[in-house]
């Protein structure tokens, strides 16, 4: 959206509310970012170091962990209303399930 989003007109309200929850400190955010950076480094390392058949599972686990940390902490899902999480997770699970089925029906796993 352009110059200003409609959301800019938004509200006072939520701010008060948010303070009620204990928001993490900046230091916490930085620590998480460092963690994310480390995982990313590990991910990239797999490109240079051959770890054999464990490669794809390892990559997936690291991806999910990163995904989770960003969503939980930076996007505040960890301390915000569970309704938000539900929306997001519903979309996520639905997308994963549906497209995995579609890939299966397209013989993606067997034919790459």
């Amino acid at each position: 959206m352009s110059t200003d989003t409609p959301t800019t007109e938004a509200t006072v309200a939520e701010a008060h509310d948010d303070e009620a929850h204990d928001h993490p400190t900046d230091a916490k955010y930085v620590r998480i970012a460092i963690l994310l950076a480390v995982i990313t480094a590990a991910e990239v390392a797999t490109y240079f170091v051959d770890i054999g058949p464990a490669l794809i599972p390892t990559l997936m686990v690291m991806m999910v962990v990163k995904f989770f940390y960003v969503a939980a902490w930076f996007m505040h899902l960890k301390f915000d209303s569970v309704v938000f999480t539900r929306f997001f997770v519903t979309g996520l699970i639905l997308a994963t399930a549906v497209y995995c089925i579609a890939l299966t029906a397209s013989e993606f796993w067997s034919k790459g």
Partner: protein
Amino acid sequence: MSEQTAELTVGGDAAQPLGVYSRPKGGGGWRDWITTVDHKKIGILYGGAALLFFFVGGFEALLIRLQLATPNGTVVGADLYNQIYTMHGVTMVFLVIMPMAAAFANYLLPLQIGARDVAFPRLNALSFWVFLAGGLFLNCAWLFGDAPDGGWFAYSPNTGVSFSPGHGMDFYAIGLQIAGIGSLISAMNLIVTVLNMRAPGMTLFKMPVFSWMILVVQFLLLFAVPVITVALFLLLFDRNFGSNFFNPEMGGDPLLWQHLFWIFGHPEVYILILPSFGIVSEVIPTFARKPIFGYEFMVFSGIAIGFMGWGVWAHHMFVSGIGPISVGAFTLSTMFIAVPTGVKILNWLATMWGGKIRLNAAMLFATGVVSMFTIGGLSGVTHSLSPADTQQTDTYYIVAHFHYVIFGGALLGFFAGFYFWWPKVFGHKLGETLGKWNFWTMIVGFNVTFGPMHILGLNGMSRRIDTYSPGFGFELWNMVATIGVFIIALGVLFFVLNVILSARRARGLPPEPPDPWDARSLEWFTPNPTPVHNFDEDIEVSSLDEFWHRKWTTDENGKVVRKATAAEVCQAGDAENVHLPSPSYWPIVMSAGMPLIGFGLMYNLWLCVPGAALVLMAIYAWVFEPPDDPDGPFGHGHDDHDDHGDAEAGDESASDEGAPQEEAASVE
């Protein structure tokens, strides 16, 4: 509201750094309609547009039937026929049934949950105008003599540039893309509305079934629209920028289109039917004078249908060459959708059981849905047996199936809704006598038209053929079907007559008194027709069918006795100083830009410039227009709640008592 906006407006004359756009004054007449942000007016707009498109799509259907009435028909040529049937399908699905459902949803959902409006009134107006822009854009194809001709599911590569070199399929891809944006915005808006705007005490499980079904549909839209968005983008890129997604010559995969289309397409068919299921679930209890039987089961079966609808799409691809294992899996998943649907059908029957049934037009249509939809549903189950489907698919047996579920399910349901809610919307009832004529001609015509298509299909008549040869045994039933459509047309005529005559009869008379049907849900608290501000004051909801419970109670013998008359219970509709969102120009301006961009993509990229300019200008203006027009009839801008006019402002909702979180938790 936030100081930010306050400053913009109250900050006054000199200090308006970026300019403030004044809001329209309402004024009356047509200007009122194009700037309105009132969910009721938007609902009526949706309904009117859908009806208009229904005449267009119906006219196309008449041409189809005339062409096929006899073998070797010559009413239209092959080329034109292919355009007509494609546009018929696209129009009926995307420009008739979906917007008609949106009409009911818009008008009734806020009323049924006891809200003043939807959560984002301006976005609501935007959804409508964007939908209309998409619909008109699509139909512009006729003016350019180049309508889409690839069937409503537009299988590639027949729709790629090599095989569809004209602009028809561009109209399809862009038109549906635009209409899709409208649906998506509306879905998000209504979801937030249901979650956040309910009347005090109205937990999700005190919402009427109609509201529930609308909610489920919005979720389906929310998740299904992006899938077809992807598909349409890929098609557009293939056609216009030389990408190779569906182009087998370059190694692309035509089945990818089919998967994407049907991942959207099957949820789409439940998007078409669930609103009607909702309507039927309101009409039958009212006229059987009993609460809906098995409320929770009705709700959960709706949710179950919504969920299961995501796992069955490949039943449209049983013969496409996907492997037998996939076919088997989708066979099974498809069959079991019959279970929750059956639960609904049987609960409707159980609602009627032991009731006192008033068989007026609304009830006739609603019970018509119960039996006619069942025919379509059962033929659906016969398709789901994949081996049997290899004989049925792409024949008129399929055409029969989906017209039974769509016409016999969705459309008849909407007619039930018209008769039921007409007084709510327009202040007078539709005539009963004509209503019954309407019903009987339509139901007979419908069966005469589509019943024979089962036979035609099983006798081997393919669909999408512009003509057939004599000697295959198709002559008789095609003629019968063609006769049938004229009976349907007669039924439609009775409806149109009814609308006109009942309006004429009501002229000068006082509006229908409150509660004409001894109804059950919140929308009937308001007088007829609904006043602009909806409710005078909030309604404390303590049970499902709150309205009914305010009128009736049970005595010590368990007998139902009246405790108040409708007139006592209903609100007067005379509240003053109700603060309402001001109208806005920008929704219609923004949507006007989109077809321009579309034409630009097709004919001359420069056209995109004014299109994009319109959209950007509208967004900019949207953001900076004042919350209210101080002089307008709508706002009375000087109250301390100098908020945004739109609920968009999000406002204080969360600040007060920290509303109950548990029920929110019950969302899916």
